[in-house]
Every structure is written in C-alpha cells, then in structure tokens.
C-alpha cells in the first residue's frame, strides 16, 4: 500500500519532470539547428544566462510583486471570509449583495484598474486594491458555500441540544466550511498574483517600485527577450510556489478531515 503510494508520488514528480527535460532539449536543439536569433526565441541556455546575470534585478522586482500579491491575498482572505460569514448568517443579505460580488468578479481588472489608479493616490495601495478585486471572489463564494454545507443531521442534533447560533457557527459551520475555504485559497492566491501583475502593467510603476510586470514590459520594448523569458520563469515559479504553499497548508490543517484529503492530487 505505502509502496504503491510512494511509486505514485514518484510518478507525479518524475513524469512532468521528464516532459520538461524533453521539451527543453528539443527547444535547445531547434534554436541551435535553425540558428534562430535570440531576440525572437532565445535558447534555454541563453535564458538561463539571463536569469543568472539579472538575478539581482529579478529578485528585487519579484520582492515588489510578491509584497503586493501577499498583501492583496491577505486582504482578500480577511474581507472575503467576513463577507461569507455575513452571507451565511442571512439569506436576505446574500440575495441582495451576491450579484454585486459577481459583477466584481466578471469585470475585467484591466478595465477597472485605470479608474482605481486615478482614485487611489498611492500607487502601491492602488495595485493592492486591484489584486484584491481579482482575488476575493473565490474566497467569498467558496466560504459561503462551505458555511452552508452542513450535514442536516448534525444541524438537527445541534438544535435538539438547544445549541446557540454561535455554537452552531463555531462547532459546526466553521469546521464544515474548512475544506471549501482552503479550496478557495488555492484559487485565490494565484489570482492575487495575476491581479498584481496585470495592475502593474496598467499602472506602470516608476523605476523605484518596479515589479516583475514592469521588467517584462521593459524587456519587451527593448527586445531583450532572454530577460523577458527569465522574468516569466520567475513569475511562473512564484505562482506555482504560492499554490503549493496553499496545498501544503490545507493538507496540514485538513489532514484528518475527510477521505478526499487522503489522496488530494488523485482527484484533481
């Protein structure tokens, strides 16, 4: 059983790694064979070179983007959870406000960002706000659903023992909502990063507070394609890292919660 599980885990790591190696090798081969100029498609080795050369610049920019992402994510989780609690307490409130949460979700952030940047004087705050708007919806919708997804039998049991509204909330609704909440976090953290990058594209921060989006923009304008690729890689790995952190967090909290947690990646 545990041998099987270990080999399954190995497969999950080894298989995608194998794909990456093959693709990288092919890429390198084709670029060299056809002598493609590096301002069109740089070879993986050239990108690696750029990554090393511009490491200081990239990490400095990453720190800026990451700070905005994490601030936005934290705010989205706080505000989203609060809204979900309010929704769960009153159907009436949910019915009146949920459509506006949906509007917030479906409006492209690129279209709203210029307005927010005009209204909010501080650029950093404006960027955070944009990212919050992108990231908050999964937290609201998942947590609301979770708080309502309570075993009706347990609810009857609570009522039978005359549990108060608070007791039902803390002992039943909050733990029931946990898996939904963490599923929401996984989506939200990625969206916070996307929101931070998109907002920076629109706002175009100055050199001092330049994030990864600014570097990508600049590299593109200067046809410094290797740097562009390097920035993209940093950005992608950051997104994967954030997602993985959320998976680890949710597995740690929900370890004993449910069968679905025993083999999380088999079902997804």
């Amino acid at each position: 059983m545990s041998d099987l599980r270990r080999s399954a885990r190995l497969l999950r790591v080894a298989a995608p790694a194998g794909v990456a190696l093959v693709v990288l090798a092919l890429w390198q081969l084709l670029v060299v064979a056809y002598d493609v100029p590096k301002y069109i498609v740089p070879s993986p080795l050239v990108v690696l070179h750029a990554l090393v050369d511009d490491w200081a610049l990239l990490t400095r920019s990453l720190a800026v983007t990451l700070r905005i992402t994490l601030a936005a994510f934290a705010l989205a989780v706080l505000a989203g959870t609060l809204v979900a609690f309010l929704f769960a307490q009153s159907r009436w409130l949910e019915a009146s406000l949920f459509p506006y949460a949906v509007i917030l979700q479906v409006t492209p952030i690129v279209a709203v960002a210029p307005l927010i940047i005009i209204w909010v004087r501080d650029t950093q705050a404006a960027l955070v706000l944009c990212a919050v708007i992108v990231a908050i919806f999964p937290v609201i919708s998942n947590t609301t659903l979770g708080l309502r997804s309570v075993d009706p039998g347990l609810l009857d049991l609570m009522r039978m023992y005359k549990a108060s509204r608070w007791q039902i909330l803390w002992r039943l609704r909050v733990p029931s909502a946990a898996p939904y909440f963490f599923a929401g976090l996984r989506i939200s953290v990625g969206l916070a990063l996307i929101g931070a990058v998109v907002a920076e594209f629109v706002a175009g921060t100055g050199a001092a507070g330049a994030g990864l989006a600014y570097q990508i923009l600049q590299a593109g304008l200067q046809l410094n394609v290797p740097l562009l690729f390097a920035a993209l890689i940093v950005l992608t790995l950051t997104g994967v890292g954030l997602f993985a952190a959320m998976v680890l967090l949710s597995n740690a909290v929900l370890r004993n919660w449910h069968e679905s947690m025993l083999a999380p990646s088999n079902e997804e």
Partner: protein
Amino acid sequence: MIRAAPRAVVHLDRVTKTYASGTRALEPVSLTVAEGELVTLLGPSGCGKSTLLGIVAALTAPSTGAVRWWGEGPERIGAAGHRLAMVFQSATLMPWARVASNVCLPLDLVGMPRAEATRAVQEALARVGLAGFASSYPRELSGGMQMRASIARALVTEPDLLLMDEPFGALDEITRARLDAELLGLWAGRGTGKRLTIVFVTHSIYEAVYLSQRVVVLSARPGRVLGEVAVDEPYPRSDAFRVSQRFADRARAVQELLVEAAAGAAEAAGTDALR
C-alpha cells in the same frame, strides 16, 4: 396486569403534519409511549415515520394536534428528567473530530466541566463497546462502529427518551442483527441498571418484531396508524427467537396489517379511476 400503569413519557394527540408545499405527511396520529417501553414505528419508506419522530423530538412542530412530554409542553425538554436524545439514519459524526470529541458534543453544548464530561464519555463508549476507539477518527471506523459511536453520543446525556430513526438501515443484515441484540442490552440497562425508553423507527418487519414490545404499523403517505401488534415475548431475547414460530406469527400479523392497507389503497385508487 395488576401493577400500576407506568408514566407516559410522550403522548401524541391527533397529530397531523402538512408541509408548506402542501404535502400531507401525517393523518391524525395518536400515540402514547410509557416509561421503560421499547416501541417501534414501522412503515414503508416515505410514510412519514421520520416526520413523526421529528415531532416527538420537538424538532418539527405538528400542524394540528398536541404533543406532551411527561405531561408538559416542549419548554422543559432538556432539563433533568426530560432529556431527549436521537440517533439518525446515518451516524452524523463530525468527520473532523475524534470519536471522543464527537461523543462529548452534547456535554460541551451545555458546558459540562471537562473532567466530568470526560468520565461520562468514557462510560458511554464502554457501554457501546468502543472503549479503545476514543481517539480514532470516524472515517477509521466501520459503518457499524460509527453507528455505535453515534449511539454513545446519544447515551452520554443519559436520556430519558431515546429516539432512533432507522439507525441500522444502511448496515448489512449481519451487523444489523448484532447491533439490534446489543441495543436490547442497552435498553435493559446494561452498564447502568436503569431501563431506557426507546422509540425506534424502522422499515424492517423482522427488526421491529425482534426488538420491540409493540409494533405500531403506519400506512403509506400520508401516514396513519394501521394498527398495533404486541410482541409479548420475554427479554432477553435470544437469536433462537428470530427463527421461532412465535416470531413468524408476529411478523405475519404485521405483514397482514400492511397487506390489508395496500389492498384498501388499491381499491380506493380503482374507484377513483372509474369515476
């Protein structure tokens, strides 16, 4: 019978239930359960048995009619001597909590001191044979063991009336028979010396006859009482009772009540069709 009539634990007087959707779940039903009795409510699926039990549990208010618990209204339910407990169709355990915490829930809700609650939980688990599983999680237990944990949670408050809604319906026949036998032990006061009062809902004729002193047979929806079959077989009941002629006779009596009702319903439907 010379001995004094035991006190009525719950008394239903012409209780009906019509849901907001217009569905009539219960025709007037009258029922009295005396202290120390083990009564089963038997009927086909969807006959309103669970609705009836919900009314007895004071979870659902009847549309018309009156319910009295120990001669009083629902206000005193939960006070000493007026405690209700319920076991549902599924174990309804909190999957995130260990067995001991699950069993402790009713005590936590009333704020019982930790030491006292822990002792009560240990006793309840021992009574259902789960003493060694206090720190397991529900998903680590088999279906039958989960149901035992659910029963322990009901017993932990020392209920004066225990309601059971098809508790073993989802289990296999063999496990069900064993749990039925264990339930009789608990009812007779194993571990406490005090006999329980139990209202047990089931759709199994065999389970009803094996368990109870009387079987109240309900019709298909809207539910009404078709009749009662007394099972005046002494306790403790052995497995031999299950295969005895006396058992078969009682099961047939129950079956006949159901068949008569079905025939009556078919006839009524036929008349409607002719009209």
